[in-house]
């Protein structure tokens, strides 16, 4: 076994022992045991560095793969690491962009403004004007953020994944582990990690997001400077403003944070239901309230997609959920790939109705509580969660968390009701749908009258 393999094994063993201790060697209640395992896993990911932190972050948006306890524990992963010395960052920029930052930019701040396990960000100013994809001109001297992949991180991830591949092979031969499909799971994580390491993908997703919301004056997406962007360097417009933790200051400056929170919820609905592309990692650090009162979206590393039929079904699920109609919500969920065996359907329906009454019928609604209960219910009935469904459900909870960070009283369900209702009404009144459904509706109405 390689030295790295041994180090990983040692951390895994320590974490396993810690989880066993905290769960009373399996004697504590189930939820407590699951929480103990989730916590041990989060600490292990943090101890093992970038690959595992990233894997943990990817798992935290996938309730279709891990338990709800794991999802909500892994989203707390601390991705703060010491900064890489600026000379090493200069080397990456020189290798990637062909010249030292001092020659490429009018100014380059050697102090990073953000550091994370995969990349760190430095502020700079443009040496020459640049016409962005959206047609806007960034003047010479414009402030930009230069995100640089940490040197050596790709090698480290490749080595870690080689170890993980060997372990996945072994796990595939153990029956109770094989049901998770470790090989397939690892391949999926590998491709997600590869996408995250290629900063051009993030830049393109951001540009597309900006195009989708070009008509929304309250949405700000930093434009990418493609002449200064490659696989390992992403240069984009600087977003100046307040983090969600600094909103007090923003409000003192006259920003209407509540209106922004409601608008942010609608922006999310438009991403999912209209454009079919959404920011799936919308945690507070990826949102900035700009000085002119807009919502700045950054870091498009994890994005989700929805197809037109899925969008139609999601709108139906959301409206049914908003109006507390468990039966309709489950029926529409089927179109999203949720397969509910006939035998468990009544129990699931009444469970969902109970959760709706407990979490959504109050003001403000508690989407997180509802989703946690719902995922638990699906696990209890051994119902597999389709990938897109899981990611979307988690994104919805994250949006609620972010909206609450801005306005603690916001009711995501109430805020999204007008939009989703309008959308479903528009879907129902489409001429082709009317043509398709009207004869049946008239026959049903006549049958009812003649009954």
């Amino acid at each position: 076994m390689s030295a790295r393999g041994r180090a990983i094994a040692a951390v895994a063993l320590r974490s396993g022992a810690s989880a066993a201790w905290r769960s009373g060697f399996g004697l504590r209640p189930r939820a407590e045991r699951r929480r103990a395992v989730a916590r041990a896993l989060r600490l292990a990911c943090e101890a093992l560095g970038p690959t595992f932190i990233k894997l943990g972050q990817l798992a935290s948006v996938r309730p279709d793969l891990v338990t709800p306890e794991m999802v909500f524990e892994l989203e707390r992963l601390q991705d703060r690491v010491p900064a890489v010395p600026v000379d090493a960052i200069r080397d990456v920029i020189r290798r990637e962009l062909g010249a030292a930052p001092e020659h490429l930019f009018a100014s380059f701040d050697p102090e990073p403004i953000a550091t994370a396990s995969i990349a760190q960000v430095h502020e700079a100013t443009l040496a020459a004007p640049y016409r962005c994809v959206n047609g806007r001109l960034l003047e010479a001297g414009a402030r930009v953020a230069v995100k640089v992949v940490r040197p050596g991180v790709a090698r480290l991830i490749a080595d870690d994944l080689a170890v993980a591949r060997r372990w996945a092979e072994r796990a595939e031969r153990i029956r109770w582990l094989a049901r998770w499909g470790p090989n397939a799971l690892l391949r999926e994580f590998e491709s997600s990690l590869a996408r995250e390491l290629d900063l051009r993908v993030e830049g393109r997703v951001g540009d597309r997001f900006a195009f989708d919301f070009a008509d929304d004056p309250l949405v700000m997406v930093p434009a990418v400077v493609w002449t200064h962007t490659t696989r390992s360097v992403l240069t984009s417009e600087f977003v100046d403003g307040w983090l969600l933790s600094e909103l007090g200051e923003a409000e003192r400056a006259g920003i209407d944070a509540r209106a922004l929170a409601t608008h942010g919820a609608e922006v999310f609905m438009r991403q999912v239901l209209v454009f079919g592309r959404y920011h799936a990692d919308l945690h507070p650090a990826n949102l900035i309230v700009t000085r002119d009162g807009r919502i700045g979206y950054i870091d498009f590393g994890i994005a989700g997609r929805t197809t037109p039929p899925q969008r139609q079904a999601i709108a139906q699920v959301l409206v049914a959920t908003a109006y507390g109609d468990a039966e309709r919500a489950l029926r529409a969920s089927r179109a999203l790939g949720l397969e509910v065996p006939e035998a468990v359907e009544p129990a699931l329906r009444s469970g969902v109705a109970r959760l709706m009454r407990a979490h959504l019928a109050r003001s403000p609604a508690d989407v997180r509580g509802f989703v946690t209960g719902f995922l638990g219910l699906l696990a209890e009935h051994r119902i597999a969660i389709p990938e897109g469904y899981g990611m979307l459900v988690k994104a919805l909870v994250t949006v609620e968390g972010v909206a609450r960070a801005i306005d603690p009283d916001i009711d995501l369900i109430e805020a999204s009701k007008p939009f989703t209702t309008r959308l479903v009404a528009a879907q129902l009144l489409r001429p082709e749908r009317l043509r398709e459904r009207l004869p049946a509706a008239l026959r049903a109405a006549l049958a009812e009258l003649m009954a």
Partner: protein
Amino acid sequence: MRDVLRFLAAWALVHESADEGWRAAVTRGAGLSPGDLERGPDDFVDGLAALVDAEKERLKRDLAADGGGVAPTEGASDRRDADLTAALEAVRFDLAELRGRIESLQTSVDALHAERDD
């Protein structure tokens, strides 16, 4: 069964009366001059009926001229313009995105050249 027939007869009667009422409103409305609102809301409704009837006749003519297809009316033309503008914007974006990709690739090529020359 008799109840159902009675219901359908009532429906036909309502339809017939509405039709007669509609024709009368169109005739009354056609006789009004613009801004003529002596009878208040009734004149307004009659005028509106006459306008809708005129539009209906125009639509009939358009349909006949188009051999059954719907010829572009003013609203349809606006919609087509909006669709064309949206399509143009989408193509413009694709083109700009492509430019971005090429700029990024060019930077990588230049960087490799610079590295080789060092």
